[in-house]
């Protein structure tokens, strides 16, 4: 073991240039993997985040009915899956806001701000001077409504529902979701405010959730929840509502995987062909070692250790190179392309390179067993 390791080390050090070239070969493979992987993961994260990061990922409601006893329901749901990150009740109705001669059709949403903020990130989206409503009949408006209605913070507007009584609301702020549909129509208040309008008592319309693992929504979490709650409730997930987005994301994951596989294949081919040549180069040494009585297994170990050492150094250099590339890319490219960078992925890339190097070294290691001592010694 120790001897084989030392011989491997000497062999590598004796032909420095060749060793450096192989290490660079592995390093380039690893760095491409790190770079492309971080880029694709970053794009994916940002896509997921922009599309479903600020909305409900699983929503529970009853068709044409409000949910009563929603606090117990929330507790049941919470206990049924570990994957639920945030859960919040919401209630929604619609109508028009009227200010002077201006009128806009709006969606009035009642939130429980403590938990809802974890889904909608409202505090991050408030414009200057705005505050969250802390009393009933205080509202936040989409930023576009500010101009369309000609109102400002502190103003009072009239809410006109076709079915229920009219109300006066006090404007406490504006928000900007960077989505026109929301900025044009959303009006946010407390749950109590909306409950008071619809006069149904302590009810809500939806239970909304965000998850830790968003891709588990349909296949795992939905099933877990369905097992524990009455089947009068509808459970809808972002996945069932966004099939095209999902297939896009999957396409990205697959292309990322393909790139990784090709990089690994090229690393394996590169190392195994160079190591196969080293077996030829070192056949004299192997012959003499075998004449001196080295065991076949130890002779094979020499090449496995060579693969291991090349893999380790290749991985280290490759990680540094990959991180350098990412740094250069984010600093100098001037684009806003997100990079997702996590240690687990780096460790995985390095691990794969080392394992690939070992596998690549297996071929020459096995080949060394067949080497005939007599031929080597006789033919010089």
């Amino acid at each position, binding site marked *: 073991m120790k001897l084989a390791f030392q011989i491997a080390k000497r062999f590598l050090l004796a032909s420095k240039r060749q060793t450096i070239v192989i290490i660079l070969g592995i390093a380039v493979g690893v760095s491409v993997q790190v770079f492309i992987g971080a880029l694709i993961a970053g794009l994916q994260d940002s896509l997921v985040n922009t599309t479903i990061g600020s909305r409900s990922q699983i929503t529970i409601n009853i068709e044409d009915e409000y949910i009563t006893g929603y606090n117990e329901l929330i507790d049941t749901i919470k206990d049924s899956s570990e994957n639920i990150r945030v859960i919040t009740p919401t209630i929604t109705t619609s109508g028009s806001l009227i200010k002077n001669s201006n009128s806009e059709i709006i969606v009035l949403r009642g939130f429980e701000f403590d938990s809802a903020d974890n889904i909608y990130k409202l505090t991050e989206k408030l414009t200057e001077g705005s505050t969250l409503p802390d009393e009933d009949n205080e509202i936040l408006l989409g930023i576009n409504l500010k101009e369309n209605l000609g109102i400002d913070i502190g103003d009072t507007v009239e809410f006109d529902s076709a079915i229920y009584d009219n109300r006066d609301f006090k404007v406490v702020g504006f928000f900007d979701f960077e989505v026109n549909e929301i900025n044009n129509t959303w009006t946010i208040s407390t749950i109590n405010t909306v409950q008071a309008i619809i006069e149904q008592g302590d009810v809500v319309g939806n239970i909304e959730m965000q998850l830790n693992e968003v891709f588990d929504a349909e296949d795992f979490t939905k099933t877990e929840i369905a097992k524990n709650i009455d089947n009068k409730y509808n459970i809808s997930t972002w996945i069932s509502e966004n099939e095209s987005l999902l297939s896009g994301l999957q396409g990205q994951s697959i292309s990322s995987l393909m790139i990784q596989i090709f990089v690994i294949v090229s690393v394996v081919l590169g190392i195994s062909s160079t190591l196969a040549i080293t077996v030829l180069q070192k056949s004299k*040494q192997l012959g*003499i070692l075998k004449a*001196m*009585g080295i065991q076949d297994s*130890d002779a094979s170990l020499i090449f496995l250790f060579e693969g291991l050492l090349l893999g380790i150094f290749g991985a280290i250099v490759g990680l540094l190179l990959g991180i350098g590339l990412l740094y250069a890319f984010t600093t100098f490219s001037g684009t806003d392309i997100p990079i997702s960078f996590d240690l687990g992925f780096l460790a995985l890339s390095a691990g794969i390179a080392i394992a690939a190097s070992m596998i690549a070294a297996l071929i020459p290691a096995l080949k060394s067993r067949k080497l005939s001592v007599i031929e080597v010694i006789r033919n010089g």
Partner: protein
Amino acid sequence: MASILSLRKINKTYGENTKNPTKVLFDVDLEFEESSFNSIIGQSGSGKSTLLNIIGSLDRPTSGNIYFKEEDLGKLSNKQLAEFRNRSLGFIFQFHYLLPEFTAMENVLMPYRISKKEITEDVTSRAEELLDIVGLGNFKHKLATNLSGGQQQRVAIARSLINNPSIVLADEPTGNLDSDTTEKVYELLRDINKKFKTTFIIITHDRTVAEKTDRVIEIKDGKVYLDISKQKTL
């Protein structure tokens, strides 16, 4: 004197399962005595290399038996044969064959390290002593590639002795050395034979070298053609 190695009816055929099998050795019977100094001569193609490989347990005979002392080498597995070579045989080759990546000292210690025993002070001082004997005490830490041909061959001799082998097999040990160096190397082998009682089997095509040994075995057409022993001088 007791026999250390005996060959009984050794036959060797190459390419047995092909259309044109070539028989190289025919019923070779040979005995080697402990601490004897032997040479095997023969033209190229006579079968002496094949015989060396069989004696050195690098190749197995097609039929016949080889006994080391009482042990039948034919019954050993490849792994056991490797252990046997490491423990009981020392090799010296024509082209020196040191490991160029290692120093003279490390090369000498290599057969010992292959045996997977801990390097002790005893062994290192033995290696140093052997390098002194071959006159290379000052070259211990030089890389093998930085030594001349004659120096490399002397390191190879020191290396063949590190595990205290019973037999040293030398294949044209002076084959590509000039006549002065040949003489020195030969004397060195002689000294070692006397000092450590090691059995030497030297394969050569050079009759003048062979004549300096105690016993000359000539191989011709795969058979023992001549076997002449000199009277031992005390």
